[in-house]
């Protein structure tokens, strides 16, 4: 598949990483509901594992600076095994995309637009995302670079506002959870959101200065981790443990408490905007990589004709998946942590091992 591929710089890649990993990561706070006070340990554990995975992917990319991750897979595993590996990734992207579409649609129908059918919302998102993919990675990265500072500012303002509601350190007393709970929380946190960083591996070859890809991705990952830990801290601090466990969207409920004096209320609209835009960017990246990988697997000369059908496939698949909120929660707790381990951890490790073996042979 040879076509014009515009490159992005490392700053844009860092913004893209943060936006992609943050997405709707603070929507459910699932690991916080399991591990409670010690959630930060689980989050940090998952962050360090994700850093390790990114380091492996960057190492592989550095050995083959002019090849995309799909081409590298073919060089390392051979044609047919590489196709199998890439098909596993296609399934993973469909899984992630379905969950992201459903999460945003459920949030909108629960909190803002109760009478709007979720399929209408999903279809609108599919159209917007397909258009963004049609514009290619450069336009996506520039859009993120432009919007992200505004959202970082908004997140900071909201966090400082909620901080006034927090009277004692909600992460105390520490070590209330057992090691197994912390590990399970770490697996949950790695499955969503930090394990998603493997998707960024498919964009590493599109960064202009490949020497800085690791630093850029680590900046995005670290900021995303800080954002998640801060959200858990603020939610526990303002809502308390019981309300956090019972709320479907705990961070959203925490933000609803904030008001400035008696004249400025309902600032949760800001976090709705943040979640919407970052989740849209997350979906743009997932679908963009899906189109590229699919184009590579089936040897398409150009990937643009795939953009619309792939969007419609995501729509159709989401229509038939995770139809109830309980399905989403069950899937996130019981299936995703284990189903995502193969594409997010096992395959990157295999790639790195194969790269080392090839390097020694040469």
């Amino acid at each position, binding site marked *: 598949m040879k076509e014009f591929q515009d490159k992005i710089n490392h700053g844009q890649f860092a913004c893209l990483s943060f936006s992609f990993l943050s997405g709707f990561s603070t929507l459910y706070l699932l690991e916080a509901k399991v591990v409670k006070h010690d959630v930060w340990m689980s989050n940090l554990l998952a962050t360090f594992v994700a850093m390790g995975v990114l380091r492996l992917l960057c190492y592989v990319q550095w050995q083959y600076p002019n090849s995309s991750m799909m081409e590298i897979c073919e060089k390392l595993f051979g044609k047919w095994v590489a196709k199998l590996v890439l098909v596993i990734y296609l399934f993973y992207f469909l899984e992630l995309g379905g969950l992201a579409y459903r999460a945003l649609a459920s949030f909108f129908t629960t909190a803002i637009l109760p009478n709007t059918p979720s399929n209408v919302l999903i279809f609108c998102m599919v159209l917007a995302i397909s258009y963004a993919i049609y514009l290619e990675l450069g336009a996506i990265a520039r859009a993120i670079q432009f919007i992200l500072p505004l959202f970082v500012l908004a997140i900071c303002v909201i966090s400082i506002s909620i901080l006034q509601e927090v009277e004692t350190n909600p992460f105390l007393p520490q070590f209330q959870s057992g090691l*197994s709970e912390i590990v399970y929380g770490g697996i949950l946190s790695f499955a969503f959101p930090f394990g998603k960083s493997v998707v960024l591996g498919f964009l590493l070859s599109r960064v202009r200065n490949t020497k800085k890809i690791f630093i850029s991705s680590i900046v995005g990952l670290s900021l995303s981790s800080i954002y998640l830990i801060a959200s858990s801290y603020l939610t526990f601090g303002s809502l308390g443990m019981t309300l956090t466990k019972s709320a479907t969207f705990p961070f959203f409920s925490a933000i609803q408490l904030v008001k400035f004096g008696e004249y400025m209320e309902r600032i949760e609209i800001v976090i709705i905007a943040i979640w919407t835009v970052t989740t849209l960017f997350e979906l743009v990246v997932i679908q963009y990589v899906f189109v590229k990988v699919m184009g590579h697997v089936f040897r398409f000369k150009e990937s643009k004709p795939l953009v619309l*059908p792939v969007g419609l496939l995501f729509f159709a698949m989401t229509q038939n998946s995770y139809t109830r909120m309980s399905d989403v929660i069950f899937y996130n707790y019981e299936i995703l942590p284990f*189903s995502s381990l193969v594409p997010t951890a096992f395959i990157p490790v295999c790639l790195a091992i194969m790269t080392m073996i090839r390097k020694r042979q040469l």
Partner: protein
Amino acid sequence: MLVYAVGFISICYGIKEFLRLRRKSTKFNALVMLLLCGVTAGYCLPVFSDAMPTVESLYKYVFNPVSHYFLNLLHIHLENL
């Protein structure tokens, strides 16, 4: 209604791209495109959609035993949540 419309759009697009790719690219690409659009249309038709597996149903089938094994190993009881 919207779902049917998406299925219809998908079939139309698939046929159009099939004809275009058969002329401009390879027959294999044209067939893949037709198959992709056909699968999408299948998910949009109620008769087929119930019978067709999704990633969710497939992964639930494959990973449910794995999940139960590991959750038991870690002594995690999610019903207490």
